[in-house]
C-alpha cells in the first residue's frame, strides 16, 4: 500500500485547513466543542472585548457540571456564591452567543464527557476540543477529542479551528482475557503504572487488540478517558460495529439515509496494516489484577494484593523523592499490605466511572449488604439520564439500602469544586481519575480504583480485593 496511514493521521489530515509552516503546525478544523461553566467564562469575555462573534454556535454544546451541587433536591440557584456566579454567567453567555445549554434542571444535564456521547453529539471521525483534559474520552467512539485551555476555547469559538502541531503516535495492544473482577479501569491503570504519568506526553495513543475489541463502549470510554493521566493528548480506538450499535438510536445521531452514508464512511476509520507508530506497547490482559493507587500521582499504583512500595528500591532520584513525598502525604508505612488500609469515605462518580454499566457493577457487589458504619459512601451518577436509568433498574434502591447517599449528577468529588469536599485526613476510595494532593479537599488522601473495588472497600471499611467479595456472593 502506498503511504499507509494511522487512524490518527487520517483524522488529522481530513481536518487540516492549511499548513502554517514547515515545522508541522497546521490550522486544524474542529467539528464540535463542549463547554462547561468554569473554563469558559474568560473565553466569552475575550470575545466580547474584541467584539468577535462565535463562528458556529451550533457546533457547541454547553453543560453545567463542575460547580453544581449534587444534593438530591435540585434547585436552579447554586447555594455556593462562586458557583452561582459562574452558572449565571454561563447561562448569559450561551444565550448571548446562541449556544445550546443543558442547565442544572435539564433532564439531560450531567458530566460533559458522559452527556456528549450519550446524546449522540460525538460521532466517529470527528475532531472535538473542550476545555477539560478528559476530552480524550471521545476516542472510544473513533473521534479525536482533546483538552484545551481557555485561550484556546476562545480561539475555537471565534474561528472553529485551532493552531495545532501533530503528535507522535503510540499504539497500545492489549490481548488476552481479563480475569473475573478485573475491569477496563484496571487496564488503563496498569498502562499508566507501566509507562508513567508522562509516558505518553507528546503522543496520541491508539488502543487496540482483542481485549479492547471485547470491551463494551462504556468500558472503552474509561480507557480513553484516563489515558490523559499518562500524558496522552488524545486516545482513541478504531470504531467498529459495537460503536455503531451504541450510537444508532441516540438522540443526535444522523438518521435514515444519512446514517447509512455516515456508517460507510466511518468504516474506513482504522490504521492501515503497514502504518508505522513511533512507539508500540503490548500488554497481556490475563496478567492484570485489580489496581489501586497508593500515592499522589496516578502512576503510583499497585495490585490490590501488593504492599506499599519502598522508595529506597527506586533508583531514579526524582522518582524516589516523589515517592517519599507521596508516602508522607498519604500517611502510609513502607511495606504495609494495601488491603489493610482503612478508609473513611467511598466515592463512586466522575466521567471515568459513573455510567450505567459502572453502577450495575457496583450494585452487583453491594446487593443485600451494608457499607461499613465508619464509612460515608456517596454515589454520584455521571448524568441525570444515568440517574433515571439506575432508578428504573432498581439499582438506586440497592445503593440506598446498602447505606450509600444517592445523589444528583455532576463532577462532585472528582475535583471537589462544589460543596462536596472532604476534610483534612479523610481517606477516600474513589472511582475517579486523579489522586493529586488536595484533589478531594486539602489534606485528603485519595485512592483510585474501579467502581466495583470502591464498593468492596465501602463494605469492608478498608481496601480489599473485590474478587473475594464476589466469591462470597456465589
Amino acid at each position, binding site marked *: 500500500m502506498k503511504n499507509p496511514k494511522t487512524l490518527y493521521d487520517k483524522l488529522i489530515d481530513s481536518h487540516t485547513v492549511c499548513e502554517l509552516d514547515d515545522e508541522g503546525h497546521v490550522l486544524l478544523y474542529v467539528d464540535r466543542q463542549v463547554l462547561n461553566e468554569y473554563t469558559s467564562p474568560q473565553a466569552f469575555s475575550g470575545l466580547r472585548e474584541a467584539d468577535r462573534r462565535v463562528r458556529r454556535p451550533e457546533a457547541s454544546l454547553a453543560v453545567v457540571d463542575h460547580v453544581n451541587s449534587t444534593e438530591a433536591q435540585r434547585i436552579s440557584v447554586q447555594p455556593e456564591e462562586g458557583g452561582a456566579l459562574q452558572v449565571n454567567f454561563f447561562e448569559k453567555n450561551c444565550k448571548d452567543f446562541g449556544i445550546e445549554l443543558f442547565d442544572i434542571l435539564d433532564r439531560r444535564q450531567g458530566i460533559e464527557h458522559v452527556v456528549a456521547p450519550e446524546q449522540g453529539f460525538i460521532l466517529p471521525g470527528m475532531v472535538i476540543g473542550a476545555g477539560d*483534559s478528559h476530552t480524550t474520552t471521545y476516542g472510544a467512539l473513533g473521534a479525536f477529542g482533546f483538552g484545551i485551555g481557555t485561550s484556546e476555547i476562545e480561539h475555537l469559538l471565534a474561528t472553529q479551528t485551532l493552531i495545532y502541531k501533530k503528535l507522535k503516535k503510540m499504539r497500545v495492544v492489549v490481548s488476552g482475557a481479563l480475569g473475573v473482577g478485573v475491569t477496563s479501569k484496571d487496564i488503563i491503570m496498569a498502562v499508566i503504572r507501566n509507562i508513567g504519568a508522562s509516558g505518553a506526553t507528546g503522543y496520541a495513543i491508539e488502543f487496540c487488540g482483542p481485549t479492547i475489541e471485547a470491551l463494551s463502549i462504556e468500558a472503552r470510554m474509561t480507557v480513553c478517558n484516563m489515558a490523559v493521566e499518562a500524558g496522552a493528548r488524545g486516545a482513541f480506538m478504531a470504531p467498529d460495529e459495537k460503536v455503531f450499535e451504541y450510537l444508532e438510536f441516540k438522540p443526535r445521531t444522523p438518521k435514515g439515509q444519512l446514517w447509512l452514508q455516515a456508517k460507510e464512511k466511518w468504516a474506513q476509520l482504522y490504521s492501515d496494516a503497514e502504518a508505522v507508530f513511533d512507539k508500540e506497547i503490548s500488554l497481556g490482559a490475563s496478567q492484570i489484577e485489580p489496581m489501586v493507587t497508593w500515592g499522589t500521582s496516578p502512576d503510583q499504583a499497585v495490585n490490590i494484593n501488593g504492599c506499599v512500595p519502598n522508595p529506597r528500591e527506586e533508583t531514579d532520584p*526524582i522518582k524516589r523523592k516523589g515517592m517519599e513525598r507521596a508516602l508522607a502525604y498519604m500517611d502510609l508505612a513502607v511495606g504495609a499490605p494495601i488491603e489493610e488500609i482503612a478508609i473513611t469515605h467511598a466515592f463512586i462518580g466522575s466521567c471515568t466511572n459513573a455510567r450505567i454499566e459502572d453502577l450495575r457493577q457496583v450494585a452487583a457487589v453491594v446487593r443485600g449488604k451494608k457499607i461499613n458504619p465508619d464509612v460515608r459512601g456517596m454515589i454520584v451518577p455521571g448524568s441525570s439520564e444515568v440517574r433515571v436509568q439506575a432508578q428504573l433498574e432498581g439499582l438506586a434502591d440497592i445503593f440506598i439500602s446498602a447505606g450509600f447517599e444517592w445523589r444528583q449528577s455532576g463532577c462532585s468529588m472528582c475535583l471537589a469544586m462544589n460543596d462536596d469536599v472532604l476534610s483534612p485526613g479523610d481517606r477516600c476510595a474513589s472511582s475517579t481519575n486523579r489522586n*493529586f*494532593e488536595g484533589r478531594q479537599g486539602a489534606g485528603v488522601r485519595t485512592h483510585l480504583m474501579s467502581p466495583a473495588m470502591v464498593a468492596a472497600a465501602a463494605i469492608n471499611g478498608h481496601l480489599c480485593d473485590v474478587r473475594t467479595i464476589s466469591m462470597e456472593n456465589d
Partner: protein
Amino acid sequence: MEAFNVVIGKVAPMLAANIDTDVIMPKQFLKGIDRKGLDRGVFFDQRFLESGDLNPDFVLNRTAWRGAKFLAVGPNFGCGSSREHAVWGLKQLGIRALIGTTYAGIFYDNCQRNGLLAIELEEEKMSELASLLSSGPVGDVSIDLPTQKISLENNGDIKFDIDPMRKEVLLLGIDAIGSTLMHADTIDKFEHRHLKENPWLC
C-alpha cells in the same frame, strides 16, 4: 499578550516530578469569571501556612528566591487539569519563564498563549542546571529569547531550542485569533467542502 525578549531575574528550583495544576492552582481559586487575583492562589497550600502567614520553608518565600522570575521545574510540570488559571496565576505572580525537560501538553500550550516561556532542555543540560541550583542560589540569570540562551552569572550559557513559530509569537506577543482570522477565506472554503462531504455534521 506580553512579549518576551530578554528577561533578567532569579531562578527558583522546584524540581519534583509531576507537579500538577491542582497543586499550582487549587480549586478554591477557580470560581471567578475573570482572570483577577490569581497570584494569591499559586501553590497556595505550600506557600501559606494554615494561619494564613507565608510558609517560610517554601522556596519562593525564602530570601534567596523571593521575587524569582523563573522556575526550574521537574519533568511533566503542569500535568492534570486543563485549568489555564494555573498559568494566569504564575504570570500574575511575576513568573516569566519555566526551565524544565518536559511539560504536560495542555499546560504547555496555555503557557504559550499567555507569553510564559516554557523552555525545554535536554535531560543532560537540565541535570547540570539542577545540581548547580541545589548547591545554592546562583544570582541573577538572563534569559535571552532572540539568541535562545540562558546566561548564568559566572557559570556560562545554556543554549535552548524552540520552534520558530512559537518563538515568533512570543517575541512579538502576537494575538493568535487575529492571525488565524487572516485565513478566514481558507477556513470558509474548507468548512464548505468538509460539511458537504460529511453532511451529517451540518
